[in-house]
């Protein structure tokens, strides 16, 4: 048996392959969950009654719904035979008696048509007994409203290192959330099979957990419930934990009516009911020595968990593990806690807390560089981890040298020095337009931090004609996992890609699967598929060895042919399979993979939770309009480490897509809630595509160069590859830092620039105003009008420790 990372000759992995469903996608023939419902007869539609109060005890009268023609049933708590809970933490009643956020689904109406269900839901009357509500993170912090277990990671002595640092900066930052906005909203379709078991088609990243929740709501064993995921129209983490309750509603409806039930949220239902990327509040102090080397970081991270825990604890955990990003910080104390607010329960989103942790240190470096008098490029590079150094949670930074190698390659390929020179000339020549160019790195830990999730299963079936069908536990949400698994199976069996098919993900094929999440699915399921294929190949080798007259160890499988080492007779793979069948050799196998070498001590917050780190660097150039704050992304260059890529076309797609999604989070996508005291307090004010803006073509970089880091074999993963789903999202910090550079060019040198998050045109405009104000220069005539309110107050302070007297007024403001 070959080692995990070794590739045979002529492997199918490593070749550019288009998505296995591409032809189905482009013709509209690809079937999604609600398309199954559209093809079925007698299907009922489920529609929620949503709370119109942020926090209240509720009593619901469903009787009026039954007066609406076409209403078949209203599902309430009384109908639940099992446990009235939609989550794994037992803090999410499926039918609540207390509305915990504006939009919380209270009961569900089943109608013959969408219209009937919608009208039935409108007829239901809800009485509210309002309770106090907390909408912002700051309100929760002030009220001491927290949930879950707070955590602290510490190394060295941050307090005394801060005291002896040459430069100390402190500040607070608010990081905005992000709506997943998968083009496909949450969708489930449930039907009972002729034997009374439940079949649930579900747009879920975690079919096994969906199965468990459906079973516990129905009060039946998991073996009575099968969950299938054909494919998802996007997931991004939003369908890791949150589909379960919707699937349970559909299944409960199917149980009570005996008919199929579909549930597909409208866009506004989806945005107002489902969780998002966690907004974070960050409060920090950081120390540098006189040469700009990081000395100490002391920070408190508060994640806005929303109304229930969901995945907030592990999200916070990953944030705490990523406050270092790519940088060696000798003394660290980072404390994390989860606020409880009356909003949607925030959840996994590509990066899973990592982006918020990295935000902290990149924001610090971006703000500090001008005050330290160090070029931001140099500041970042000089603080990179060196080989042999470990993270603040005690894990050796494996292949740390790659950071510098990637950085230098990008710097030269993107022609950075010449462009920086050009930009400074441009900026001198233009008063109202400035350009900025920045480079940022990413180091992202790969593995589930919940160690038990690092296992996977596969079931590989070889039919007598030599065709191959693989089943594995991962789900397809567009990332190309199925394509990669086909490539892995084709490589392991030595057959062409076309000889292998992948079956839809089903809990009755591979049980107890982990979520398709944490970027780990190719690593985990690929390991399992490979092992299963190798087991079958081993059996076939014995048969072929006898036919070819050589020892089984000297049989080779490649390109659909079986040969002896050194050449000679070539037998079609199908012939060997047919012969193996006649000889009564088992032609199917289960594969099981667990990631070795992981350990994590949750109490001490120390260990080696990650198998390896994925690395990358991005260089972004922007141009900012000083009159409006609007900007364009002129050029982006990326070099990313995907190990020895399993599938380069797909990996580049993940890098580009992740980058643009991260850029959306940091610059454009803005979630706004009503934080006033009126009757719509807690209502999401951006509940639709017309109010919540995703990146469109206009946000795509005008020039976009993406390259994979070469000769990048990762010994610890399947065929030497690395995970690629999440890390590239964090490359978008280069855009935020480029904006900061451009804004800074409107003001005097050496001034720290603060940027709101997201850095919308308005946020950039106010930052420009602050920079221009600091310049004290003649700004545009309009900005001197006295009636104009000042820009929002600066939240952060910068203190030069060596100079304890009153600092320059533009550098020091009191922390809030």
């Amino acid at each position, binding site marked *: 048996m070959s080692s995990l990372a070794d590739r045979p000759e002529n492997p199918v992995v490593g070749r550019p392959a288009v998505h296995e469903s591409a032809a189905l996608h482009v013709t509209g023939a690809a079937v999604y969950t609600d398309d199954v419902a*559209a093809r079925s007869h007698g299907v009922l539609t489920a529609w929620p009654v949503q709370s119109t109060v942020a926090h209240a005890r509720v009593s619901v009268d469903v009787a009026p719904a039954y007066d609406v023609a076409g209403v078949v049933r209203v599902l309430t708590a009384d109908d639940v035979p099992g446990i009235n809970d939609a989550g794994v933490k037992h803090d999410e009643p499926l039918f609540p008696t207390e509305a915990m956020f504006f939009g919380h689904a209270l009961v569900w109406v089943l109608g013959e048509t969408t219209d009937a269900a919608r009208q039935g839901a409108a007829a239901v009357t809800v009485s509210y007994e309002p309770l106090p509500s907390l909408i912002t993170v700051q309100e929760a912090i002030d009220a001491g409203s927290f949930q879950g277990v707070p955590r602290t990671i510490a190394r060295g002595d941050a307090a005394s290192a801060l005291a002896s640092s040459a430069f100390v900066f402190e500040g607070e930052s608010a990081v905005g959330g992000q709506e997943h906005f998968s083009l496909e909203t949450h969708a489930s379709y449930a039907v009972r099979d002729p034997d009374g078991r439940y079949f649930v088609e579900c747009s879920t990243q975690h079919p096994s957990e969906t199965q468990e929740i459906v079973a516990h709501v129905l009060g039946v064993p998991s073996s009575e419930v099968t969950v299938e995921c054909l494919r998802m129209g996007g997931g991004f983490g939003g369908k890791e934990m949150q589909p379960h309750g919707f699937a349970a509603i559909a299944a409960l409806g199917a149980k009570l009516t005996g008919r199929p039930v579909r549930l597909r949220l409208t866009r506004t239902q989806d945005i107002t009911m489902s969780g998002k990327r966690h907004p974070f509040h960050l409060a920090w102090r950081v120390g540098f020595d006189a040469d700009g080397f990081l000395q100490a970081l002391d920070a408190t991270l508060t994640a806005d968990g929303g109304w229930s825990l969901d995945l907030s604890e592990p999200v916070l955990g990953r944030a705490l593990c990523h406050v270092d990003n790519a940088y060696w910080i000798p003394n660290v104390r980072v404390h994390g806690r989860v606020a409880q607010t009356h909003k949607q329960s925030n959840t996994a989103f590509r990066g899973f807390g990592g982006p918020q942790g990295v935000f902290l240190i990149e924001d610090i470096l971006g703000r500090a560089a001008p005050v330290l008098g160090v070029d931001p490029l140099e500041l970042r590079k000089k603080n990179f981890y060196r080989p042999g150094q470990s993270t603040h949670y005690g894990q050796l930074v494996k292949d740390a040298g790659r950071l510098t190698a990637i950085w230098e390659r990008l710097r030269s390929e993107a022609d950075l020095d010449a462009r920086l020179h050009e930009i400074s000339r441009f900026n001198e020549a233009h008063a109202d337009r400035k350009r900025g160019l920045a480079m940022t790195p990413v180091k992202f830990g790969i593995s589930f931090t919940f160690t038990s999730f690092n296992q996977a299963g596969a079931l590989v079936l070889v039919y007598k004609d030599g065709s191959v069908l693989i089943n594995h536990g991962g789900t397809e949400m567009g990332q190309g996992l199925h394509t990669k698994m086909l490539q892995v199976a084709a490589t392991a069996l030595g057959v062409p890609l076309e000889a292998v098919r992948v079956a839809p993900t089903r809990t009755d094929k591979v049980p107890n699967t982990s979520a398709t999440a944490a970027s780990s699915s190719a690593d985990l399921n690929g390991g399992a598929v490979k092992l299963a294929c190798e087991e079958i190949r081993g059996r076939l080798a014995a048969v072929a060895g006898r036919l070819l007259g050589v020892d089984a160890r000297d049989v080779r499988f490649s390109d659909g042919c079986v040969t002896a080492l050194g050449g000679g007779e070539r037998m079609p793979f199908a012939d060997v399979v047919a012969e193996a069948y006649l000889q009564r050799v088992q032609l199917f196998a289960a594969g099981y993979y667990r990631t070795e070498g992981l350990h994590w001590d949750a109490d001490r917050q120390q260990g080696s939770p990650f198998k390896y780190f994925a690395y990358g660097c991005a260089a972004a150039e922007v141009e900012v309009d000083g009159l*409006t704050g609007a900007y364009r992304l002129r050029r982006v260059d990326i070099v990313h480490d995907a190990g020895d890529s399993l599938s380069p076309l797909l990996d580049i797609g993940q890098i580009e*897509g992740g980058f643009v999604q991260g850029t959306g989070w940091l610059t454009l996508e803005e979630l706004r809630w009503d934080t006033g005291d009126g009757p719509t307090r807690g209502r999401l004010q951006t509940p639709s595509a017309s109010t919540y803006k995703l990146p469109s073509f*206009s946000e795509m970089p005008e020039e976009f160069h993406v390259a994979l880091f070469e000769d990048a074999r990762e010994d610890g993963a399947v065929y030497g590859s690395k995970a690629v789903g999440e890390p590239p999202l964090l490359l978008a910090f280069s855009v935020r830092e480029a904006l900061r550079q451009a804004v800074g060019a409107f003001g005097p040198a050496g001034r720290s620039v603060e940027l709101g998050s997201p850095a919308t045109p308005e946020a950039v405009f106010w930052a420009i105003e602050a920079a221009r104000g600091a310049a004290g220069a003649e700004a545009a005539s309009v900005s001197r009008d006295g009636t104009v309110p000042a820009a929002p107050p600066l939240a952060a302070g910068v203190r030069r420790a060596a100079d304890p007297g009153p600092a320059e007024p533009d550098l020091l403001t009191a922390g809030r």
Partner: protein
Amino acid sequence: MTVNGRVVPLVGAVAHATALDWLRSLGLTGAKEGCAEGECGACAVLVATAGPEGTAVWTPVNACLVPVHALDGQEVVTSEGLGSPDHLHPVQQRLAAAGGSQCGYCTPGFACAMAAEFYRSDRGAGTADGEHGANGFDLHALSGNLCRCTGYRPIRDAAFGLGMPRPDDPLRERLTEPAPTAVATAVRAADGRFVRPETLGEALQLLRDEPEALAVAGSTDWGVDVNLRGARAPLVVAIDRLPELRGLEFTGDAVGIGAAVPLSEIEQSVGERVPLLAQLLPQFASRLIRNRATLGGNLGTASPIGDAAPALLALGASVVLVSAGGEREVDLADYFTGYRTSVRRRDELIRMVRVPLPSAGPTAFHKVAKRRFDDISSVAVAFALELDGGSVTRARIGLGGVAATPLRAYATEQALEGRPWNAATVAAASVVLQREGTPLDDHRASAAYRARMLGTALPALFAASADDEEATA
């Protein structure tokens, strides 16, 4: 109705059924609902519409916003009709090979929007820039399609890599024949009635006799109301094909634009003859919306954030209102009366918008929004100035997004008129402009930012006009 070349009886659909829901009920599930408000394009399909001289055009529209009964007798092509997995259409082939689909949910809509541009009869090789391919593909054709997975680069590359349709391409051949004419329609269902009258007279009678009648043209607002707000008007009257509302006439000093002419058509036909409209229209929503949306609808809803009104105010446009009792013409500056209200009576239709042809003075449309393509303005400012001998002889300024109605910036106009067109005048007038309106804080922008954007618009116009003078000098 003809769908993918097959005649399908339009039976069983309720009055408010959207084309999307109906197509999906036929098992054509390629078109998806991503937002149900015309923002994402996942539901895009192609409709054969009238082209020049008896030809047809494949026009992509958001199926989620179109009443299916409005397509009675029409021809529709969906992603399934472009090609099949075994026989991909050239657009589908490029999109698939480029890695242009990841999750695939938005992809059928992209395929349709791309196909429309593929077949555009005046597309031809040209100079490539960031938004145009060397094959003449205009990326703005895809501005109404959102993708959450790819980051767009492979979709752009697929679009810019397209060739020209083969001469025997059946969808291209189809365009040499006229598009179907409108079909008089009268549907009565449990949720109301849908009527397409044959004549303007019939339409006006319906509006007079039935107080709850709702006139729709492009239905881009109707669809949002139906899908997101559950609106079900008892009677929907389709007026989008009435010839009296479809004219485009240049007279000596004005252009009369039929209220039901889709904005895309205005974009093509009016072009540079009204530079302010030529600036505005590409920034108005997306191509998918402009293919259906009309000036009549944009003014009819009297929304304070519609982008047409500020430009038309600056141009000094008027609206021609028609009812069974006759016609009257109202200056647009007197048209709006409050938040989403106007002087238009319930029984009146906007028949035409009359736009005086501008003189050569500087005009500009400044749109401030979070996103450059397809976003709603937080502030819109339209300028139309006339200069003589270095002085401002006339100024018309229209504002959107800063009050309950679109506004004329009268005070600013006064601060400009009769004064020299120079930096001092601009600075003084900007202070006035910044105080026009009563901007609010909302999810799009703060009141302070909106006010400042008013203030920066005039200097930007001045700088641009100075650049122009230098360029022409």
